[in-house]
């Protein structure tokens, strides 16, 4: 079947069998490997992307089911050389250790901050409850989210 997906503002026409997950299409067909393959059973959040402003797990999403939709991945956050405020804040706070969970963390944080620039500690924890960091680097991640929100608020 043929479907159209807009990924990071770029329209793609794809020929699919129907059984491909969005994760497989992003990585294997579109070469967008920033979205990570990890647990592949909706537990870790490493494969998080944004659809309609909400964090979605691409490992349990059928790509063919998204015909006509817009998808944002980690590659779509920066504008040219200008990193997204969430990306900048993660770098400035040293929020990345092994880094594997970070794309998913950033996508979930972005989905939160685009709705709420000044989340409380519990709102941040709640929004990131589907993202697991095996290095347990949560404090730095939460600090970065708070700072990014502050910057997005000032830039708004």
């Amino acid at each position, binding site marked *: 079947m043929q479907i159209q997906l807009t990924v990071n503002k770029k329209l793609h026409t794809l020929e699919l069998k129907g059984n491909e*997950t969005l994760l497989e299409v992003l990585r294997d067909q579109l070469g967008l490997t920033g979205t990570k393959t990890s647990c592949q059973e909706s537990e870790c959040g490493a494969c998080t992307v944004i659809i309609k402003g909400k964090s979605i797990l691409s490992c349990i*999403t*059928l790509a063919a089911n998204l015909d006509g939709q817009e998808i944002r991945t980690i590659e779509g956050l920066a504008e040219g050389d200008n990193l997204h405020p969430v990306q900048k804040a993660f770098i400035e706070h040293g929020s990345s250790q092994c880094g594997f969970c970070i794309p998913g963390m950033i996508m979930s944080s972005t989905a939160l901050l685009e709705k709420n620039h000044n989340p409380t500690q519990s709102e941040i924890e709640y929004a990131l409850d589907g993202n697991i960091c095996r290095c347990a680097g949560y404090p730095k991640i939460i600090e970065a989210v708070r700072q990014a929100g502050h910057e997005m608020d000032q830039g708004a």
Partner: protein
Amino acid sequence: MLLNHLTLHTPKTTLEAARLFKELEDIKVLAGGTFLLNSLKLLKTKGTKTSKNILSLAKVDDLKGVSVDSNNLTIKAMTTITELFESPFLVDNFEILRKVCRNISTTPIRNMATFGGNLTCRYTWTEMPSLMIALDATLFFMTPEGKTTSISAEDFFKNNARSEYLFTHAVIAQDAQARLVYRRVRKMSDVDQPLLSLCVKTSLNNNLWTKTRVVINSGIAFAQRDYKVEEFLNDKISSSDLGLKAMDNLTNAIYDTRSSEYKQHMFRISIQRAIEEICKSN
């Protein structure tokens, strides 16, 4: 490939979906996909055959939304848990539903999982069944001819959550006198699977318990009412020791079946505390 070959069907209307649901053989319904996709992947890794036809409801717009009409709350099947939680119609009158939605799994799962999927997926441990039984919800289904049939949530789960027709929506009558408490004990597990959950509802009339429902979800069997303790509670006046007294009136068979001592203990504590919470709230 994580999944076996499948044929994806994407109807755009409820009637089209209801027809396909009846006509296609070897079929699974895809709502939010949070149960189904993992299940299909797991079966593939085990070398087990998986369903050939997948009926996606994602494009059926008339299966989405929450509304209030006179005194009834209507929740359509494809409403996500996040959408349900964020619905203004739940504020004040159905706070219990918001509380339950808020505690389901994780944010991305809540963004994907649907009310209908949670209710009719046939996993015994999901959140909505006990709540819908306690709220005396009516569940509606569409036949392939476009006719609507309905059944009470309680009877639906007595029938092992099976239906030959497509689930479309649930309707809950508003009850200003109703007091509800939902409790859940989480199992330490890779997935957010409650060890047990329960919902206690009563309509307080001058401190008198009436129309009480105590709905138990053991995680092993489908959610069910404990009629014995309900009978004990009805016509009782709220008091600080009502929860404790109720403990001698439980239908033990519901709690003892394949349950560990810890689980039985947690059921007793949870029911007692739920009753006490309602008594205190008055």
